[in-house]
């Protein structure tokens, strides 16, 4: 049996699939600060045979929480002489341009714990000044005296040659084996010292936290006689072993959210959709990511706490490209100083939650608007809904300000929320040169299916897919993952001046590294698959385009092919190519998958192919262009393969609703997925 557990802000989810391909789900409360308890609770609640768990996959917010709540350990930093302030100077940028009281993100290591040692490499990786070990010893003793619990080591140009970082770590291990250490080359081999130092520091900062968490979880599993293969979900959309996770916990920073995106790609492969926009609406945010020809896009342009007003902290590890905006079911509708309606990013959260929850919420939210327009029914809530209270809130806080009816105001909230989400969807599609007509929208999370049909139509997407158990789809995605490691090496060479034997050696060395890591994790060589990319730009440019490149030996023909492919991609993204300008590689990127056996998806056996058998009720629903319309409401569980419905209609399932617009139609596929024809030509 494969079991996935995913710790979220409020709930810890579990999804399992047994040997017959049957899927089961369970939910229990998240239990900070001892998150492992929530995992044990949800396993118990699912009533699975714990000894029968063969594979255990875990997604956790422990790392991101430790970072954002500043609950990591006291950390020291060792740098090249002259550069201890790199971490504090950072990049000097001020995203909040016109704010002269802008406050810079505070470094995770105080200045007195940032120490310098004599050592220096040049940009070619040649040693200009050898490492001064006597000085290093003093620094180590100083940090020991100051009682740091973790040390980060980041020297200039170590991405080309890590020799001094390696020597430094050896000496620390010798003199002080108990302290947690991270050298920059272990977490990223890309240039730019601030970004690399930041990544290294943050890894060290959470390393003891991660080790203690993973160990506690592991002990609990063993206590319950679960002798499974254990994996942790990483931000790159693949898993890694408990052991590796403890070494570079920073790879877990987006452990949970990426699973749904990855799951979308897997489901797409099963049902023959290779171009997908994955779209996840939760309680506080909406997330989207574009999957092109079956490929989930992974990059190292990740930050925490970066906003339009704040520079944030860079983390240069591979993270699935996700655009996230502060618009979810709990997002609050409000009116700005000059009378414009806004929705989010402030959220009513789980407590007090939307007005409809009756838990003390007074501010109208997207969920409340969906309720008043009939998209949700009071029966969809776990709480007793006071409709009058919801009406009053929307009337007073929104409708009266515009002299509109409550329905019009509620629809206004939905339209503004949709407009925000549409901009996010455009950002990853049209604005990256992709034609939405060639993509399907896969909607999940509690609110995905409610908003997706309208958004797809606006965006120009022809098909919307609402997967089975769409509200826990992320955890399902986790069940379907392989082991994955990304190896990125900065390697600056012009394509017309490549030393091919040297390049082939470089690729080979990345693959050797991958085989070695997988071997340590118990994965045999035959199950390891590689995909290669090169980050390329025109000479003189800074930003690169990630170009898929071939495996195996490179020849002159390969180079011409790569140049051509780069030009085409550049044109697709940015509307032009520069034929005469030489192209330059910046990074080599090897993605290595350790393939595991995954459950097959079960076909739908229950339900009726006649939609009328699933009809629950008829209720009025308020639509943008048609006003109130009597709308049939169907129970998704009763819909069988080939059932067809014409809009307007609502399809309800546990914790989610699909809103089908007039002139849209849907059908149920053999697995039970809802496939909507959005009416886009």
């Amino acid at each position: 049996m494969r079991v996935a557990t995913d710790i979220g802000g409020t709930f810890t989810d579990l999804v399992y699939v047994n040997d017959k391909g049957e899927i089961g789900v369970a939910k229990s409360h998240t239990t900070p600060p001892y998150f492992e308890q929530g995992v044990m609770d949800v396993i118990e609640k699912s009533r699975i045979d714990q000894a029968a768990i063969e594979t255990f996959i875990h997604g956790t917010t422990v790392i991101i929480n430790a970072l954002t709540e500043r609950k990591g350990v006291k950390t020291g930093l060792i740098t090249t002489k002259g550069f201890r302030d790199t971490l504090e100077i950072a990049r000097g940028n001020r995203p909040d341009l016109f704010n002269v009281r802008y406050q810079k993100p505070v470094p995770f290591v105080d200045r007195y714990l940032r120490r310098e040692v004599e050592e220096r490499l040049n940009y070619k990786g040649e040693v200009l000044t050898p490492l001064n070990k006597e000085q290093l010893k003093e620094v180590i003793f100083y940090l020991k005296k100051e009682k740091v619990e973790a040390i980060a080591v980041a020297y200039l140009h170590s991405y080309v040659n890590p020799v001094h970082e390696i020597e430094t770590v050896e000496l620390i291990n010798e003199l002080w084996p108990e302290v947690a250490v991270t050298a920059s080359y272990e977490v990223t081999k890309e240039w730019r010292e601030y970004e690399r130092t930041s990544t290294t520091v943050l890894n060290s900062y959470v390393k003891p936290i991660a080790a203690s968490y993973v160990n506690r979880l592991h002990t609990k599993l063993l206590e319950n006689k679960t002798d499974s293969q254990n994996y942790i979900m990483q931000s790159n959309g693949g898993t890694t072993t408990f052991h590796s996770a403890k070494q570079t916990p920073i790879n877990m920073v987006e452990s949970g959210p990426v699973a749904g995106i990855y799951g979308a790609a897997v489901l797409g492969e099963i049902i023959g959709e290779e171009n997908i926009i994955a779209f996840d609406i939760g309680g506080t945010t909406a997330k989207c990511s574009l999957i092109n020809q079956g490929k989930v896009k992974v990059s190292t342009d990740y930050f925490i706490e970066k906003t339009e007003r704040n520079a944030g902290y860079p983390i240069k590890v591979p993270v699935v490209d996700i655009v996230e905006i502060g618009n979810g079911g709990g997002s609050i509708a409000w009116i700005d100083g000059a009378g414009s309606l806004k929705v989010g990013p402030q959220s009513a959260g789980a407590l007090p939650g939307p007005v409809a929850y009756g838990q003390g919420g007074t501010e109208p939210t997207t969920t409340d608007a969906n309720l008043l327009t009939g998209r949700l029914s009071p029966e969809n809530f776990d709480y007793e809904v006071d409709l009058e209270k919801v009406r009053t809130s929307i009337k007073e806080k929104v409708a009266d300000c515009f002299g509109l009816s409550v329905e019009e105001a509620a629809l206004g909230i939905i339209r503004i929320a949709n407009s925000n989400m549409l901009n996010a969807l455009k950002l990853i599609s049209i604005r990256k040169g992709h034609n939405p007509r060639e993509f399907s929208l896969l909607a999940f999370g509690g609110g995905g299916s409610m908003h997706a049909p309208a958004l797809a139509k606006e965006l120009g997407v022809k098909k919307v897919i609402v997967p089975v158990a769409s509200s826990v789809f992320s955890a399902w995605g986790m069940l379907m993952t392989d082991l994955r490691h990304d190896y990125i090496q900065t390697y600056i060479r012009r394509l017309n001046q490549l030393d091919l034997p040297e390049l082939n050696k470089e690729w080979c060395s990345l693959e050797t590294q991958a085989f070695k890591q997988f071997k340590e994790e118990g994965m045999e060589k035959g199950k390891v698959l590689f995909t290669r990319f090169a980050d390329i730009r025109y000479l003189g440019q800074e930003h690169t385009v990630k170009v898929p490149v071939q495996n195996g030996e490179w020849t002159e023909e390969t180079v011409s092919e790569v140049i051509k492919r780069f030009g085409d991609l550049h044109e697709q993204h940015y509307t032009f190519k520069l034929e005469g300008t030489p192209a330059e590689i910046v990074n080599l990127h090897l993605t290595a998958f350790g393939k595991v056996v995954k459950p097959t998806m079960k076909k739908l056996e229950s339900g009726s192919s006649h939609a009328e058998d699933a009809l629950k009720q008829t209720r009025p629903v308020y639509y943008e262009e048609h006003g109130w319309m009597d709308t049939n409401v169907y129970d998704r569980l009763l819909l069988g393969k080939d059932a067809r419905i014409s809009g307007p209609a609502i399809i309800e399932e546990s914790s989610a609703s699909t809103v089908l617009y007039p002139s849209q139609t849907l059908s149920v596929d053999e697995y039970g997925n809802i496939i909507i024809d959005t009416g886009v030509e």
Partner: protein
Amino acid sequence: MIQHVQTKIDPFTLEIVKDSLIAIGDEMFIALAKTSMSPIIYEVLDYASGLLDSKGQLLTQGNGVTGFIGMLSDMVKQTLKKFGDGQIKPGDIIIINDSYAGGGSHLSDVGLVMPIFYQGELVAFSANKAHWTEVGGKDPGSFSNDATEIFQEGLQFPCVKLFNEGTMNEAIIDIIEANVRFPELSLGDMWAQVAALKTGEKRVIELYEKHGKDTVFSSVEYLLDHGEQLARQELCKLPKGTFEAESFIDDDGFGNGPFKVKVKVTITNDKFIADFRGSHPQVPGPINCSYTALVSAVRAIFLAITNPSQDANDGVFRPLEIITDKGSVLSAERPAPVSIYWESMLAGADLIWKALAPIMPHRLSAGHLLSVCSVVLSGTHPDTKEPFLIVEPSVGGWGAAEGQDGARGQFCIGDGETYNVPVEVAETRYGVLVDEYSLHTDGAGAGEYIGGAGVVRSYRALSDQQMASVTFGRHKFLPWGINRGKDGSANHFYVEKANGEVDGPYGIYARYPLNTGDVVKLVTATGGGYGDPFKRPVEKVAKDARNGYISIKQAKEDFGVLVNPETFAVEGFAKERKQKGE
């Protein structure tokens, strides 16, 4: 009290179209950086792009720096003035950098303007302006700190058509190619600008097709009115009256100066008037700025005072009035050189800042490094033997404010979403070794809240015949403290030669020659302090000393706290601090 904009079309559609316009602005902005060939654009983000209506009113602007916030409108207005409605055709792209007629800043900032037509009618413009690494002129990098006439500062594009109804004017390309030092960079950036404009055009037309002309027109009015209302509401909250400040610009690059500049700010319920009359007349050296540049600077500080987080458009600035004498250093006229115009332009912003900071401590801070602190370093890369050119601003210290210490190592108000060049990138590309990039903790700017430290960045030349042109203003007059906070320190640089000789400190210096092993040590200012230093809590003073932001001696002398140099424990207080109530 909330007043509402009256509209015929439903308010949500207007809001949605308005958001779409802003999103288009963002998209154009990103497109330019991603494809640019010059670090000054993709790292420093020294460019702006935006959408304007058919009359040249700014609707939305994506900014990397604050300095362009008044300039796109003038480019478009100049285009309208020169060509009139009739001669502007679909597919035209106009190129303009004339500092005195539509350009506004210096020649290095090259503007492109593209009219957008819908159903045969001119409905909008997309425009951008970007700092090209090279536009020719007497010095590498084009902007020069010892130019005496604008003719030395590079090629002038006096509002001419680069594209005629979609056909490129090859002659202009050839002229650029023949006149600039790194034509592939400049032309590469030009293409990036053209692509960004076309993206804007495409999106605007899509918006018109989707919503129809009337709705988009109404949304544009709504957007501008909405901006104006937000600005007026903030204006109502400000203290009313007249506030004055005076200051000095160090020198003009030729040793002339200092030059007195002054402002009288009048705030009423619906006006914000900045009167710079009485400031020094334009000067021989290139620190002059045009009126348009001054407008940008005043707009930047106006936004800081009213609402730094709003989307800026011409509606927001309707309450703003700016008055100058003719031909002053803040409103210079042709052919005064303007290469390093930001020195006076930012002095204009600083004056208003200084006049209002004591009465608006919740919005403004003490004085900061003020100067862009630009560095131009040229030479030959010792490995590739190719020429290289560093053109970059420097980070420095910001002033403290009520409730917060000054930021350390940030770009000045004239910059913004500007990134320093990583040492690893600089050493790969350029023929230099960076000996040090660290905070310059001189402990200046003492206060209850302390000024932020500047930095030291040292370039060691790795080949002979390199040349450094350094433009560090605020070298003689210090960043000011407020409410009894102390002043900060000065921007300056030294050269430590391979033979051990040390030369400096200097502020502005044109073409300092460097040979292998010579080090140019660039040191930027610490910002001014806020409030009485004796009121700074003891633990904070001890921690500052432990972190090396201040010395043990400064802890005692400036803050009245005796700190143990080994343990950093507090051991007592100076008499003065005790008298003040510790």
